[in-house]
Structures are given as C-alpha cells and as structure tokens.
C-alpha cells in the first residue's frame, strides 16, 4: 500500500535570481494519516515550502509530487484535494453563506455538516459576514472552511496566531476530531505549546535544509526528556537548558523509558547540537 502523500525532492528556490536561496536541494516526504509540526526560526523558509507544496510558487530546481502528480501542473485533481491556510489572507466582503456557495464547488468532498460543527466549536454560526469580523474571527471562519473542504492534505501556516485563549483549545479539538487515516495536516508554527500534543511527526528546518524529520514515537524511543533539579548531574545530557526548577535536559534513552516530548527543548537542541541529535537518529 502506498502511504506517501507528498514527495519533495531536490527543491531549490530563491525570490529573484540574485537573492540567496531560501531552500537548497531540499527533500522530504509526508505520509498519510499524520499531523506534522513544521518548525524553524523566522525566515528559514517554512512558508515558502508550504507555498511550493501548494503549487503557488515554482521551484527553480527539483520537484513536488502530490500523490504522484507534479504539483506545478496545478491539475484540478491535485488542487481540489489540498488546502492551504496562509498566515495572512484577505477575505472578500461577503457573507459566509455566499462565500461557501462560491468556493465550496471547487472541493468535491466539501461537507456542510463539518463546516457547521466546526463553527459551533468556535462559538460562531453560519450567518456571519466576512467583512465584519476581527482578525481572530476571520482566521477561525477561514479555518472552518478549510476543514470543511475535507481535503486529504491541510496545510496551516501559524494557525494559532491571533486566536484567543479558549479558541486555541478549540483549535486542538477541531484538528483532533477531524483526523483520519487518509488525511494529513501540516502545521507550521512558533507556538509549540499550542500544538505539541497534537503532533505525531516533527519537521525542523534551518538554513535551507531539513534538520529533523521524525515521528514523535521514534523521537521518544531514542531520546529521554527530563526535568532535573539544580544539583542533579547533567554530564550525560545531549542538551541542557535552564528551567524554573533546575534544568530541562535531553538524554539518550538508554533505559527505554517513556517520557513526554518537550518540543521547545527538542527544537533548541536540534539547532544548537545538530550533529549530536542527528547521530541519535543515525542520519
């Protein structure tokens, strides 16, 4: 059975010929049925990667295959099966009902039930007017539409930005309930605490390259995340970061114990101790 959803190979991209490359010989593939967290510092090409995967930008070298089809062909069968929620977007000055009427037909699996359920979860209803919403409400309305399109791939760029406190929890509920074995979600974010329990796969990129592409299960199999007191020794640790009570550390998981993935510490560790961390995964 082919579980591959999207295959990125040898991708290079820069905004203009003389500008430095955002992505350079970048490769990765995403499987069906997973929630991916795409992490990287500002300006390392996360959004660019999403736009390239959605066929909105064209790579200067390399290719993106979506379910085996070249995405730069922008064939309807590919585009009707994926949806991108950019970090910033403009919505037309129309009612949500009108918006749905105009845009839903592009997505053959569009579900009105899903739309209403999602709006309800976010404390909204379908009688809203897109021109009269605050930024956070607009984001919620657009995310509801995105989920309702029921596409196999959903890409979200900083989805929790601008959401109020209860909405962040609702967002997690909505994603958790919307997942199936056939769908994948890729969430690019800096707000790791908003999403860490949702992920089953972590992608970390830096300076045109992918540093880490591992499932949460395989990360926790190889690494042990611990909170240690001030006077506990840290010499075995792969990475040490001061915390309130002492240190947050990453150790090799020598005793095969389960610990809770600390995404923030993993991210910092991967950037600071790239070789050590990658060695743990035999990369």
């Amino acid at each position, binding site marked *: 059975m082919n579980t591959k959803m999207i295959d990125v190979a040898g991708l290079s991209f820069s905004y203009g010929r003389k500008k430095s490359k955002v992505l350079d010989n970048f490769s990765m593939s995403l499987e069906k049925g997973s*929630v991916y967290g795409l992490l990287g510092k500002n300006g390392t090409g996360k959004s660019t990667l999403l736009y390239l995967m959605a066929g909105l930008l064209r790579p200067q070298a390399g290719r993106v295959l979506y379910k085996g089809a070249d995405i730069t062909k922008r064939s309807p069968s590919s585009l009707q099966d994926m949806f991108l929620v950019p970090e910033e977007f403009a919505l037309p000055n129309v009612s949500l009902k009108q918006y749905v009427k105009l845009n839903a037909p592009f997505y053959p699996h569009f579900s009105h039930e899903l739309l209403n359920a999602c709006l309800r979860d976010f404390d909204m209803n379908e009688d809203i007017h897109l021109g009269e919403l605050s930024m956070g409400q607009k984001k919620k309305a657009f995310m509801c539409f995105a989920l309702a399109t029921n596409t196999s791939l959903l890409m979200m760029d900083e989805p929790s930005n601008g959401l109020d406190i209860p909405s962040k*929890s609702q967002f*997690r*509920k909505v994603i*958790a*309930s919307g*997942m199936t074995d056939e769908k994948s979600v890729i969430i690019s974010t800096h707000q790791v605490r908003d999403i860490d*329990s*949702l*992920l*089953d796969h972590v992608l970390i990129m830096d300076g045109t390259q992918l540093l880490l592409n591992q499932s*949460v*299960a395989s990360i*926790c199999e190889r690494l042990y*995340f*611990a*909170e240690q007191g001030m006077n506990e020794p840290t010499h075995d640790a792969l990475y040490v970061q001061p915390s309130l009570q002492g240190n947050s550390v990453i150790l090799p998981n020598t005793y095969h114990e*389960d*610990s*809770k993935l*600390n995404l923030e510490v993993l991210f910092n560790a991967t950037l600071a101790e790239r070789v050590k961390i990658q060695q743990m995964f035999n990369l």
Partner: protein
Amino acid sequence: MKFKESKSIYLQIADRICDEILQGQYREGERIPSVREYATTVEVNANTVVRSFDYLQTQEIIYNKRGLGYFVSQGGRERILELRKEVFLRDELPEFFRQLKNLGISIKEVETMYQNYLKE
C-alpha cells in the same frame, strides 16, 4: 487536559481513563469512548490515544470487541488498584522513606499521624 512535564502523554491519558473507571464513569463491561472521541476531549493526536488503549489492553483493564469499540474488563477496577499499589510501593514509597530519613522523622511519628488521619 493539562499534562505534567515529564510523564509521557499516553500514560497520563491511560491514568485518566483508570481514574474514570474507578469513579464509576464507565462500569465493568461498559463501552468507553472511541479513540476519536477521547482524542477530541483531551486535545491530542489520535495515535497517542491508540497507544493509551493498547497499554490498558495489555494490562487487561480494557478489551477490544471488533468493530464495536473498547470495553472495561471484568475485574478491571481491581486490576487498576493492584497496578497502582504496585507502582506506589515500587516508585513512590522509596522517595517517601528518603524524605523521612533526610528530615529525621521517625516511623512512630508517621504512624500516629496516619492513625489520626484514619479517624478524620
């Protein structure tokens, strides 16, 4: 659900399900929520809940009926209490002893306090 810093999420969720069984929310022989329902409630990835359910299944606290879902095993409550006793005696009691020793508290003192506690 607010997760603790160090214990893996799937075990924390398993603990939560055990608490709910002990509280009588799901009785022996009754169905517990589906993976998807539970994932939504605690806002985690469905695969994490699958792991929690697998764990509880190997501990014989719940069992799977094909196509119908997961049910609380006969004797599941007792099994949870046994397991918790095991964990308490193995992991928590030594730490408690260490503190008694460090702080110079005699077991007599503790016994009197425990007797008083039981009377309350």
